[in-house]
């Protein structure tokens, strides 16, 4: 039986399997991780901590590489504007 954790992504609660990366959770919630300097929505590209496209605001801290962070109970995640 998988174990679940609940996180909040752009204000909306999302339940994911424990061990899910924050980047994967943002993809599941169809939310961009960041808005680029010219205003384009972006989502994870490399999945391995290289490209920084998955950077988002995690628990109030911006520019966090969400592919390198696992979801934890009650974590809040927001698109990095």
């Amino acid at each position, binding site marked *: 039986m998988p174990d679940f954790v609940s996180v909040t992504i752009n204000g909306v609660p999302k339940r994911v399997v424990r061990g899910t990366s924050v980047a994967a959770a943002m993809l599941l919630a169809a939310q961009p991780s960041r808005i680029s300097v010219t205003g384009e929505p972006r989502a*994870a590209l490399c999945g*391995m901590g290289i490209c*920084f496209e998955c950077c988002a605001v995690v628990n109030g801290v911006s520019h966090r590489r969400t592919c390198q962070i696992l979801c934890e109970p009650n974590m809040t995640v927001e698109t990095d504007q």
Partner: protein
Amino acid sequence: MTRAEVLVIGAGPAGIAAATAAAANGRKVIVLDDNPAPGGQIWRNKTAEENGSSGGEMKRRALESLRQSGAEVLAGRSVFAAYASGLVQTVWDASGGYVEEFGFEQLILATGARERFLPFPGWTLPGVLGAGGLQALVRGGYFVAGKRVIVAGTGPLLLAVAAHLAEDGAVVSAVLEQASLRQMVPFAMSLLGDPTKLMQGARYRSRLRKTPYRTGCWVVEAIAGNDGQSLAEVRMTDGARTWTEPCDLLACGYHLVPNTQIAELLGCAFRGSFVQVDESQRTSLPNVFCAGEPTGIAGLEAALVQGEIAGLACAGQPTVALHSRAAAARSFGLRMEKAFALRPELAALPRPDTIVCRCEDVPFGELHSHVGWTDAKLQTRCGMGPCQGRVCGPAIEHLLGWKPVSVRQPLSPVPLEALCFHGEPAGISNRH
């Protein structure tokens, strides 16, 4: 500062093999890795339990040997500075930017490789990911069941990724390999002498019975749906004919490029794009060794044997018994490099408004008037964002032929307060 006799950077197969060999022969070993858990990319954790595959079994055994060897693994640490005199500095992102220092007598670089990305119109749309990128995210808990996926680019990874996606329930509508069949034949023939790799290829193919594997084909454009903000279809070509197919996800990567930033920063000598090493994996610096992809893209077997050689060499043990295995693995890499060489048409895909540097949104049209990296960096900020040219650098090398310029520390973004008050977590108030 924490002191190790042997410090290993990277806990993929090469780093695990190196650390195990060194620690099992009495050296005090610390392994640093950027990812949340050891295993590297090829052995990246799956959120669900490992599915009993041979890869999972190999990884389990390697990690068990590592544990028994007594080597200490510290995950989540990004190296941002390194000095051959015996110091490595890391930032521990998950702790909120805690800076740590590690001393070493010998250093083993096992920093692996990353995917090569090439820009094409629409490649910045959400829904367009790397091939290894999508696989890593699926292993990280993303679900692709029922999604229509096109896998494209080049290299042996495409088939592996497509097979895994299909196993996870994705509808893989096509695999596009840019290399021509003729270019790939000698490589394919050489696998006939390698039953393990041949069987692996056959297993992948059997999972993709309904998926066409099109050689000599490549993506020319990713097209957004009506919202203008996410992928809806992909335009592709075989060089003569161009057609469009709908899809939910495009997984596109052009083989691998080595992660050599730390070796460059230390001042190791290079042979082309790769770190130069001798038969015992020693670089041009006497106390720095390098194993795996940074010495030449050659895959898992090369990483394991080179890692073991480096670890034994650091422990003063003989390595000569392993040299022929290492040479065979290296020659596999060279054949692979020829088979998947990039076709020139890929350099003509970006339009003037196609973004090349994704961190700073620098379009291709702004780069033409510059003669090289230094000029372009100063005028456009290309390559100066947080990824430090890790994505656009190899792309621009293919598009414009610019060779990368020297790397500098910090190799990855470090919070300023972490640098000023290192030894304490950033954001903690009791600073002195």
